[in-house]
């Protein structure tokens, strides 16, 4: 075997580092070392940026020279935010109409009922694996029950409130020819420190800055380095959870200390609920006027209206929300607001001819179904899809005769 396998070469020789030349002045050496250091840092950063873009291109199909972050999934125009057509950021792919999911035709094929599903990030999809957000699951379920009869489009966008839905539906959803609209409103938006205005005012329109190279026009944001955002995300992920929690607790305490007693709500704020009521009424009357068969879904969360489990990971979700978005709310108020809002949905929907889908009572309050306070896991999205499909098949304007009930949990 000696001649068959042989021996390993153990070590290699040592090459000493270069030493400064005799006679070289100290200042010159320092200057040279500084220039070398800067050149090395630049080489590192340029390589990192180029390979970050190549990685995005290979992994996600992202253009080498284009803006690239989750913020670019949306674009702003004079009426408000819309999805950016044909853009992809990681697993989130926008279609030709600026909706999440595969491309669609301008109008539904003959005999096909188009179902639009609108909501905020819970609808758009956040933690679910690709293709498991609940509108996509609805499509799969409907295809298995009534192949070729329904087409589900996910028109949800992160941050879409009931108020901002009204112009968005008129301008972006109605032209798609959808005849059924599923609305999953997020009541939490009404707990922000700055209350939503009763009359919706779109954000000020700022066209994107561009740079022109000959015949090429490139958005200026395409030149924003991607490596720093990625490095920041990675480094944040290295911080232990308890440190993040402590920092957020401190931030929350700091924000609250700047305001007087009584700033933090101890009960569900009725003025905010009144604004939600107004917005819901306007939304439902608007969809009714457009002739859309509307299903309004109650809002489900990790606690199912009861604050029994506020320790451990559950507490983390609440502290995250309070410190980042809703410092005025206590955990009880956040959960309570959802419950009162759901009562409001049950009250207002029938008045406007909408069908109520009970998600909050049907999706178990468990980490199996919720990745955080309100966003779904794959299992949660699947449950949600089943409930809505059940609602569509049995209660929508043109029920599918003979359809088998879709499984309940």
């Amino acid at each position, binding site marked *: 075997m000696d001649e068959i396998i042989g021996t390993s070469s153990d070590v290699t020789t040592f090459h000493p580092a270069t030493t400064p030349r005799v006679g070289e002045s100290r200042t010159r050496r320092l200057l040279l070392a500084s220039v070398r250091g800067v050149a090395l840092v630049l080489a590192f950063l340029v390589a990192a940026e180029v390979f970050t873009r190549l990685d*995005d291109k290979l992994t996600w199909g992202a253009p080498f020279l284009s803006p690239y972050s989750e913020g670019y999934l949306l674009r702003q125009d004079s009426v408000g935010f819309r999805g950016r057509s044909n853009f992809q950021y990681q697993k989130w792919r926008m279609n030709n109409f600026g909706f999440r999911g595969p491309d669609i035709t301008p109008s539904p094929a003959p005999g096909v009922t188009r179902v639009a599903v609108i909501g905020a990030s819970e609808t758009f999809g956040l933690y679910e694996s690709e293709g498991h957000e609940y509108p996509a699951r609805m499509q799969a379920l409907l295809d298995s029950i009534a192949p070729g009869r329904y087409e589900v489009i996910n028109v949800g966008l992160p941050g879409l409130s009931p108020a901002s839905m009204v112009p968005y539906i008129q301008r972006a959803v109605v032209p798609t020819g959808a005849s059924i609209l599923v609305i999953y409103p997020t009541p939490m938006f009404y707990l922000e420190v700055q209350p939503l205005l009763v009359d919706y005012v779109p954000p000020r329109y700022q066209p994107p800055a561009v740079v022109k190279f000959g015949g090429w026009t490139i958005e200026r944001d395409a030149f924003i380095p991607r490596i720093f955002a990625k490095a920041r995300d990675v480094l944040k992920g290295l911080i232990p959870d308890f440190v993040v929690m402590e920092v957020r607790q401190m931030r929350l305490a700091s924000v609250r200390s700047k305001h007087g007693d009584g700033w933090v709500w101890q009960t569900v704020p009725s003025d905010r609920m009144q604004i939600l009521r107004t917005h819901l009424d306007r939304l439902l009357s608007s969809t009714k006027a457009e002739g859309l068969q509307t299903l309004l879904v109650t809002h489900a969360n990790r606690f199912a209206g009861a604050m029994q489990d506020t320790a451990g990971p559950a507490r983390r979700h609440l502290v995250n929300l309070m410190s980042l978005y809703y410092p005025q709310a206590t955990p009880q108020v956040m959960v309570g607001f959802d419950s009162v809002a759901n009562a409001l949905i049950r009250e207002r929907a029938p008045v406007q001819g909408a069908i109520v889908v009970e998600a909050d009572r049907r999706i178990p309050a468990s980490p199996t179904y919720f990745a955080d306070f309100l966003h779904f896991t794959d299992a949660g999205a699947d449950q949600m899809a089943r409930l809505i499909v059940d609602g569509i098949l049995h209660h929508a304007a043109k029920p599918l005769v003979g359809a088998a009930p879709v499984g309940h949990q």
Partner: protein
Amino acid sequence: MLFNSFVFLVLFLPITYIVFWSLRTARARYVWLTITGYVFYGYWDPRFCLLMAFSTLVSFTAGLGFLRWTDPKRRKLCLVLPITVDLALLGFFKYANFGLDSFRTVVHWMGADIHVPHYNIILPIGISFYTFHTISYIVDTYRGVIRPTRNFFEFSAYVSLFSQLVAGPIVRFRQIEEDLEALGEARRSRWRYRGVSFFAVGLVEKVLIADTLAAFVDPALANYQSLSTAGAWLAMLGYSCQLYFDFSGYSTMAVGLGYLFGLRIPQNFNSPYKSLDPSEFWRRWHISLSTCMRDYLYIPFGGNRGSEWQTFRNLMLTMLIGGLWHGASWTFVAWGAYHGILLAGYRRISGTWDSLPTWVRRPSMWIVAVVGWVLFRSHSFAMAATILGKMFSPASGSLVPNALLSAFVLTVAALWATAGPNAFDMKHERSFRMELALATALGAGVAIIAGSRSSPFLYFQF
């Protein structure tokens, strides 16, 4: 913890490095290396640390026994007992279910109705590697090749050395004994540049080459039934390069890390796809394993000192065990048998084979190795047969994903593997040009790690 993870690069390595060099005595450095080794290992599952500690203690005690006793019986006991314990642990964790499953298949095939259980055993990561470390220490001590250490922390630092703990190279105590003994006098600056340079080369091999190849190889082989002939060849050629650069990258990083801590770790890969015959292939592929197999299996079996038949038997036994060492599956055993036959066959026709021109022998040897990788990569003989069938008979079907790009990456990888230098061929001399190249390589590697395509090392599973 992976070398190509941020928790390693940003937290573990800097802290380990700074504290290590702030310590002045060899003993303190042994203790620190031991602690960090256990932290590194426990990051996967802290329970496995107990197993490694037990194995370390048993082998160290055996070493002390060799120092104390000179009569053959007791020395034999110091040899047999700890090796039995080590092999029993390895056998239980790695091969228990394999044995039971095989037994169940046989008794069912014979028509017997016996309930054979299947246990839910988690395979401790790297157990095959550190078991080899401890066994080699015991055997070398018994043979008088090394003098066992009385310093427990020196020995535990050797076993739990994080740079080579979970996926090799299988460094024998005698190979780093000198550096370990001199660890108290080691100078930080001596090999720092070499360490960074080796680590950067390994990082490029792993994250730029192996992980990029994995992006098309893995999905292609997940749907191997739909591959065409060209697709099957592309996938398997890609896998051969992925496996090489993955493992070689890990080994090169381990060497670099060794240098950073004043330890010279031997070369584990010497451009194996430049080999002209099976014998040379095993002198270049996973050198630390093949030399261990030679010294601890082949030679004790009798080596090539007997008849041709006995040599063939010894070769086959060695390679079968080598195959089984890689994984508890009959496909690995078959892979070992395949290489055993290749080595034996080469012994018979070496005269004729060696007279062929290099441009025939080198690509032929690579293709022969690729055929072996089919067995190595397949989770069943059915899968292996399907892939081999598609490779050697015309089959319609799909190519690999992103075929054009995949072919380009494969060409680059193949050229480097068959004609380019490996990390030990490169001159790791400090120059501005080299520093620029290192900075660029590190930047590229870090970018890919920060992205989403970096993946665990393939050899972790062994």
